[in-house]
């Protein structure tokens, strides 16, 4: 279920430091806060913007996996239900679990757990932020309990380079555990990622699964784009060009499809919004899996009113076929090639 990120309002945050875990088992100790962080409007809005920016850029709808061994689904459900009660202790459990899920490849980071609302619905945000190498986080005390100082949070805010590695936002849409809607994004990826979100974060840590599999997203994008080309584009010449661009996108060696980028590269500006609205893909990009559409990628097919059809491999189309829009709605197609054979069909 999609929710309006513009209506996110954060009310409380707590920060824990999660050090890198060495394969040897050595490494710094986890630095836990004993009370929530002091929060000014600037601090709360800073984290609001970090959550929004990462989820609006590339987020995936997720649900808690009932078979998961992660404690995060149960803790999140309790936080959504009881809000302030045991907020600190529950965030500590989340921090310890994240630490146990990480391996030696995961760098030092800060874990922020936030209580929030999205359009009056209770919400919990979990962010994994970059911690600059070599910087020892300063803790201060509030009522005798350790916490991350406001000054440190402000320093973090002022550091434009501070990256949000991974974000999860969970919103209580109903009363049951299964009615918790989740969105997750992952900006800390390798150069050639194969999944939308790193497995250790999505599955091991958060205990979630993606709601829509990549092959389903890919098929939905393919079919919606084809429908757009046939319904919203009137010129047969343009229809052919856009269809070839779609097949090229599907057949390329890119591992992800970004509809916004595809729109920019394929359609004129005045058509891009119409396309993006009609495609309605949640999140900015998704992993490409053409398993369900691969039979449609081999040929471009043009069907005519008379019953004539032209079939062509997409990579040969531009070189051998010329489509001209004639006055009165007719189309002239010129094929320049050598006939090999003719057969009944």
């Amino acid at each position, binding site marked *: 279920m999609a929710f309006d990120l513009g*209506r996110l309002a954060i009310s409380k945050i707590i920060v824990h430091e999660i050090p890198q875990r060495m394969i040897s088992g050595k490494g710094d100790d986890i630095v836990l806060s004993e009370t929530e962080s002091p929060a000014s409007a*600037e601090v709360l*809005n800073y984290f609001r913007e970090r959550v*929004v920016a990462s989820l609006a850029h590339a987020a995936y709808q997720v649900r808690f996996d009932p078979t998961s061994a992660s404690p995060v689904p149960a803790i999140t459900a309790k936080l959504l239900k009881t809000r302030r009660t045991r907020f600190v202790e529950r965030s500590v459990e989340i921090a310890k679990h994240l630490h146990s899920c990480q391996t030696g490849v995961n760098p030092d980071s800060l874990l922020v757990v936030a209580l929030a609302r999205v359009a009056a619905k209770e919400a919990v945000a979990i962010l994994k932020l970059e911690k600059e190498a070599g910087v020892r986080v300063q803790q201060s005390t509030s009522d005798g309990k350790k916490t991350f100082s406001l000054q440190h949070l402000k320093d973090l805010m002022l550091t434009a380079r501070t990256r949000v590695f991974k974000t999860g936002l969970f919103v209580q849409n109903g009363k049951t555990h299964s009615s918790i809607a989740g969105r997750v994004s992952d900006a800390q990826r390798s150069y050639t990622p194969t999944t939308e979100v790193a497995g250790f974060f999505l599955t091991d840590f958060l205990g979630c699964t993606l709601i829509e599999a990549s092959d389903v997203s890919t098929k939905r994008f393919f079919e919606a784009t084809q429908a757009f080309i046939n319904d919203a584009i009137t010129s047969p010449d343009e229809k052919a060009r856009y269809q070839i661009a779609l097949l090229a996108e599907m057949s390329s060696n890119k591992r992800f499809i970004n509809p916004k980028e595809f729109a920019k590269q394929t359609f004129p*500006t005045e058509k*891009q*919004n119409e396309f*993006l609205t009609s495609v309605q893909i949640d999140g*900015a990009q998704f992993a490409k899996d053409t398993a369900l559409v691969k039979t449609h990628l081999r040929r471009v097919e043009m069907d005519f009113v008379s019953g004539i059809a032209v079939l062509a491999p997409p990579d040969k189309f531009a070189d051998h076929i010329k489509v001209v829009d004639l006055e009165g709605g007719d189309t002239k197609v010129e094929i320049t090639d050598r006939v090999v054979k003719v057969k009944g069909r």
Partner: protein
Amino acid sequence: MHLDDFRTRWIADRPTYVELAEAVVSLLSEELRRNGVLCDVSGRAKEIASLLTKVIRKGYTDYDKIGDKAGVRVIVWYPEDVAAIDEAVLRLFKVNEYEDKESLLAADQFGYAGKHYQVTIPEMTKCSRKCIGLGCEIQVHTRAQNLWSDVAHDLTYKPAQEPPRELLRNVNRLVALVELFDRELQIIQNDVRQLPNFQEAAMLYELEKAFYRFAARRCDKALSLLILATIKGAFSADELSQYPTLLHDFVAQNEEKLDEIFQTYANDERCSPLLFQPESIAIFERLESNPPQLREKWDLALPATYLDDLATIWGVASP
């Protein structure tokens, strides 16, 4: 009643009248803000010395007869909005006395033309019980009338004998300018909005009214016009011709969200300076309706990050 008795009673009562003035300002500001009436509202309870000099000047013997102990002044930005304030006052308060100073002037006479209301707060209103039933004066001025009322005390006095004709003509000539100023200002404001090549002024007028409902702040108009001139290209000719309706519909559909956003950032000094400009609402509308066109036009004249920041505040990916 001795002057010291007036002083003693006013020292005791004044805090309640301070509360009353604050309550009237708050009720009226909120009502006018929700209706998109652009104005400044301020209030005060009379200072102790000021009340006592009034007692001496007017020869009061009865404390309860002294009017204007609490006063609220509304200064409209556009003369045409005076009528909307009249409606708001009648909706909110019990009006015990009303005086339209202009209606007291003869056709060939010029003078102070503000509107004065003697009001009390009705029983059911949410405010301190102590304030119910106490009188407060509301004065409604245009900006020119406000200027005139401020300087009038220096110009008008009651000498023992009639001042020379020439002096009276000079004062009348000056006060006639106040009325002329308001009238000409309204004509010019209307003309500016209708200039065929200055569509952004008409857009800004609509946006100011919408914006004022959520954040009663003054804006940098020159910046507003610069940004609107840039993003105007992200609208079709049809959309521009219907802009008041388009904006009204957008605000109606997103009222809660806009309210939440402006409240969330009201005390955030690090937030985008463009948020508290009326055109932020126009930008939010385009982020919903046509982000690719908005991005294309924006990048022609303005730094990309300004739009990115507003997109994040609105909760969408930067186009």
